[in-house]
Structure formats: structure tokens, C-alpha cells
């Protein structure tokens, strides 16, 4: 969870740019120095409605659902691919303040269960692939 937080901390689509531009600390201004981005932030700060926030929360909800679906399918097939995908998407959804926290947590735990199930089955078979062939 800590690694995920550090991964997404400085991205421009994070929740940190919800606040006013003038409240931005001086030390963190390196990645916000592009003029187009600053103009967009100023525009968002001036308009009272801030339509970007609802779109971002809906994105986070979609991430939570995608994490759940990937984690569930990854229990049976493509554990190595779908498990980490579910973990990352669930963590991102929680970080970006989704309204469907239960779905995101379920996806997160299913992603972890993918890798645990694969490890258990591999250990039981004593082989990395295809137990049928011996």
C-alpha cells in the first residue's frame, strides 16, 4: 500500500490538484510547471462546480469494479497477470477516493488471493507448470 501511494503521489490526475493553485507548496512545484497544466488548474479552481472531480471519482469507481472482475477471473486463469493488475487497480481506486470502497477492498483481497492460490497450487504440485504432464 505504501508503494502504491508513492507511485501515484505526483501524477497530475491525483486528488492533490483538487485544491487551489495558490495553496500548492513551493517544494512540489516542479512537476506542475507546464503552462497548459497550470491554466487547467486555474480554470478548475475558478469555476465553482469543478466537473473534473465527479469524472475522477467515476474513474475510481470503474477501477474498483475492474479490480474486482480481474481478481475474480484471476483466481482460475492468468494468475500472474490478473492478480497484480487487480492489486494495482484496487489500490489506485482506494487512493483516488472511490465511493465503492467495499468493491475496491474485495478486488484488492481477490488480487492477493490470486497469487496465494497460485503459490499454494505450485507448491502442492512441485512444478511451475502443467501438472498433467508430470
Amino acid at each position: 500500500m505504501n508503494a502504491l501511494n508513492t507511485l501515484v503521489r505526483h501524477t497530475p490526475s491525483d486528488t492533490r490538484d483538487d485544491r487551489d493553485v495558490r495553496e500548492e507548496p513551493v517544494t512540489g512545484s516542479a512537476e506542475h510547471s507546464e503552462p497548459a497544466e497550470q491554466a487547467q488548474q486555474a480554470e478548475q479552481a475558478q469555476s465553482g462546480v469543478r466537473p473534473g472531480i465527479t469524472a475522477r471519482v467515476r474513474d475510481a469507481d470503474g477501477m474498483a469494479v475492474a479490480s474486482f472482475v480481474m481478481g475474480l477471473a484471476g483466481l482460475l486463469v492468468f494468475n500472474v497477470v490478473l492478480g497484480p493488475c487487480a492489486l494495482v487497480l484496487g489500490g489506485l481506486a482506494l487512493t483516488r477516493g472511490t465511493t465503492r470502497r467495499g468493491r475496491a477492498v474485495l478486488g484488492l483481497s481477490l488480487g492477493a488471493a490470486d497469487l496465494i492460490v497460485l503459490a499454494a497450487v505450485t507448491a502442492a504440485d512441485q512444478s511451475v507448470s502443467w501438472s498433467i504432464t508430470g
Partner: protein
Amino acid sequence: MIFIVAAFLLLGFLVGTAAHIPLPATFAAAAAIGAWLLVFAVRERKHHRQGS
């Protein structure tokens, strides 16, 4: 020939759990997972119809 064997083993690693458990168990797990996904999709659709 060795390339085909290596690709086959890599596919087995990629497929994951389904390559390790027996075939009837795979089918049972697939049915359970598919049923859960179907129920989730139906509930989601119903919820969206009511919401909008």
C-alpha cells in the same frame, strides 16, 4: 523442438491455477466464477437502470 517445449511450459506457467488442478475441478471453479460475474453484472445493470 526445444522451442516448442519451452513455449508449452511457459504457457502452463502463464495459465496458472487451471494448469495445475484437474479438469473437473477447473470446470467447477469456472462455473462458480462465471455465476458470480453474471450475478454481479445483472445487479449492476439493475442498479444503473434504477439510478438513471
